[in-house]
């Protein structure tokens, strides 16, 4: 997997994930992912569009970071997951606790709210 970040308006950090979010993939990005979501940043949009596959290890990685951000009163939003990945998120009920947006403007509005 690969992970990159970009700074958007209003101190929002967009994190771009790519590759299969399985055990091997997550092991390559988990440290960077945790660094990117660390204090003092509080607003995150995580672009999932280049993730073709996700197992429970991937859900775990999202949850760990979303929980850490939530604890600081921050916002953590997923952008544009592929249908298969979206199904996994919905099957595990994660879509109920981490918001999923299908377009960037919607995500920007939500993360700024």
């Amino acid at each position, binding site marked *: 997997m690969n992970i990159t970040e970009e700074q958007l308006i209003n101190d929002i950090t967009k994190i771009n994930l790519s590759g299969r979010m399985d055990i091997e993939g997550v092991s390559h990005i988990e440290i960077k992912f945790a660094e990117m979501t660390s204090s003092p940043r509080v607003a995150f949009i995580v672009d999932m569009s280049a993730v073709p596959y996700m197992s*429970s290890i991937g*859900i*775990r990685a999202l949850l*760990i970071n979303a*929980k850490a951000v939530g*604890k600081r009163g921050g916002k953590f939003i997923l952008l544009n997951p592929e249908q298969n990945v979206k199904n*996994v998120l919905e099957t*595990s009920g994660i879509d*109920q*606790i981490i918001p999923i947006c299908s377009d960037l403007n919607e995500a920007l509005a939500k993360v700024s709210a």
Partner: protein
Amino acid sequence: MSAWLTQSIKAMGGSDEHIFNFDLCANEAVTNIISYGYADHGEHEIILDIVLADNIFCLSIEDDGAPFNPLEKPEHVSPRSLEEAQIGGLGVDLILKIMKKCHYTRVNGKNIFKMCA
């Protein structure tokens, strides 16, 4: 494992959804076996076999690890909030939700877990 599953399901005429679901559930099951099934650090064999009958794919996974029946695990409750959400324990839950039928037996010191969809 993913490459073998993809190839096998494709060769038997399965859809992309079949491939995704079996790839996911096999990964979850095998990860659990490797993580929790063995007290030693020796080499072990995990045997996977996929068959198609009456338009239903069935994958069986056989291992010689500690007895573990995934079907006896208490049902996972979807978290209501981020603070409440438990990290982990999601793998078996995904298998049980995605697969149409699962079956477990313990035979000759081996776990045999079969999942069909």
